[in-house]
């Protein structure tokens, strides 16, 4: 992997995020709006299971997850646009490898996700969110892996979508179930089983445990992290291979 090329592509993607109003809204303003809205509405009500924790605090891991899986859509849209505008073909005539190209997208989106976690956390503190253990920083690790899976799902969506409009529709296949089964919507035992098929479950579940004060010695947290890591890496590899084979042209 050539460092100069990777850094140039990384800068390119970051500039796109900053300069494109669509991406700026999706990736920065959306988490701000969600946190403010839920903070105002839910911060005064305690959960039934633990009176020390507000419903809003219980929702924060879900907000992290929601903004991270939103990346499925932005990646799918970006890749379909690049393909339609001939930018992928042009890139393909340079010495840039597909690994460098996808790698830069993964790094960019992980960085954006971590920034989103930081923004949501800072805003959540205003509404009474408390950092109860040093394990809080594991949230960044979980969300980092979750964003990698989102890049993978985005690539799969972009493979089958022929326009950025269609990319939004196709990416809903991966976005909606994760939103329903892994954010702030309460789950029954049955839906919890379904949720286990999606990476966001492992992220939200563990971060909620950590934020509720469950000690880091709890093995479930670490099992979830391992499952999420394997799941995310597998999805991004599958997404890359599918896109490379069927989605570039």
């Amino acid at each position, binding site marked *: 992997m050539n460092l100069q*090329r990777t850094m*140039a592509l990384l800068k*390119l993607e970051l500039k796109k995020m900053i300069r494109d109003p669509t991406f700026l809204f999706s990736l920065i303003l959306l988490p701000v709006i969600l946190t403010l809205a839920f903070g105002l509405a839910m911060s005064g009500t305690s959960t039934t299971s633990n009176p020390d924790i507000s419903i809003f605090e219980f929702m924060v891991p879900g907000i992290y997850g929601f903004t991270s899986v939103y990346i499925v859509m932005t990646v799918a849209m970006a890749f379909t646009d690049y393909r339609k505008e001939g930018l992928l073909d042009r890139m393909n005539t*340079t010495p840039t490898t597909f690994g460098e190209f996808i790698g830069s997208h993964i790094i960019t989106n992980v960085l954006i996700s971590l920034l989103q976690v930081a923004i949501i956390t800072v805003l959540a503190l205003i509404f009474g969110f408390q950092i109860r253990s040093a394990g809080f920083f594991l949230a960044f690790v979980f969300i980092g892996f979750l964003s990698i899976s989102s890049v993978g799902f985005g690539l799969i969506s972009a493979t089958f979508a022929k326009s950025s409009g269609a990319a939004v529709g196709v990416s809903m296949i991966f976005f909606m179930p994760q939103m329903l089964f892994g954010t702030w919507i309460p789950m029954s035992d049955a839906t919890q089983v379904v949720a286990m098929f999606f990476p966001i479950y492992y992220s939200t579940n563990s971060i909620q445990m950590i934020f509720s004060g469950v000690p880091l010695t709890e093995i479930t947290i670490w099992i979830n992290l391992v499952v999420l890591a394997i799941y995310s890496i597998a999805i991004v590899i599958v997404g890359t291979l599918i896109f490379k084979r069927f989605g570039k042209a």
Partner: protein
Amino acid sequence: MTISEKSDLRKGSSDNIAVEIQNLNKHFDDVKAVNDLSFKINKGEIFGLLGPNGAGKTTTIKMMIGLLKPTSGEIYVGGYNVRKDLNKIKELIGVCPQHAAIYKFLSGRENIELYGNLHAVDKKVLKERTNELLEAVDFTKQSKRKAKKYSGGMLRQINMLMALIGDPDILFLDEPTVGMDARVRRKTWEFIGSLKEKGKTVVLTTHYIEEAEALSDHVAIIDFGELIDLGTPKGLMEKHNVEDLEKVFLKITGRRITEGL
């Protein structure tokens, strides 16, 4: 990549031939887009692929640069086989696609520098070369504006400079002046002509007769994916006893190149 390593790659070409195409075919289902095409392009020449829209020029170029796989036949660029050594070929070439493939949220300068970085051009050299290229086409003033604010002609100018920033040995220009006004087109012709003086090989597709005549050392006239004649512009006109390449095409096919445009 260091300069010496790049020099080694250039050893892939053993003679004076920059590009060689042998019995090239490309079929899309039952449509023969390129049909048994064979020709050679000398190092340091401007080679024009002339033909009407849909003649197979872009398909041929896309196969030369590895974006399309041939149905059959062989292509050698810089002495390397496109099927086997595409990564080595990518170090030698610059490509200006038919439709301006530019990041609209970047400025013209940023687009050029991005492609310089993708070709791993040294940072200091990159800055100097970007300035030189922009000056050469009188684009320095506008280069800091976002590309989304450029006219079609300006986008095409940046499109071409992006192909040149890696200092390629072989340049593929696919209809580079479409959408440019007459003044900018003339300026661009001068610029393309100057590339030859720098020892570059230029493969140029065009449906502009004037462009092919003004720039090309050799012209391959293509129609329905087939090579219908090949030679110097002057030689072709003398051979068919006519005054321009349009009439050469008319004499061979009974149609005008510009029909249907």
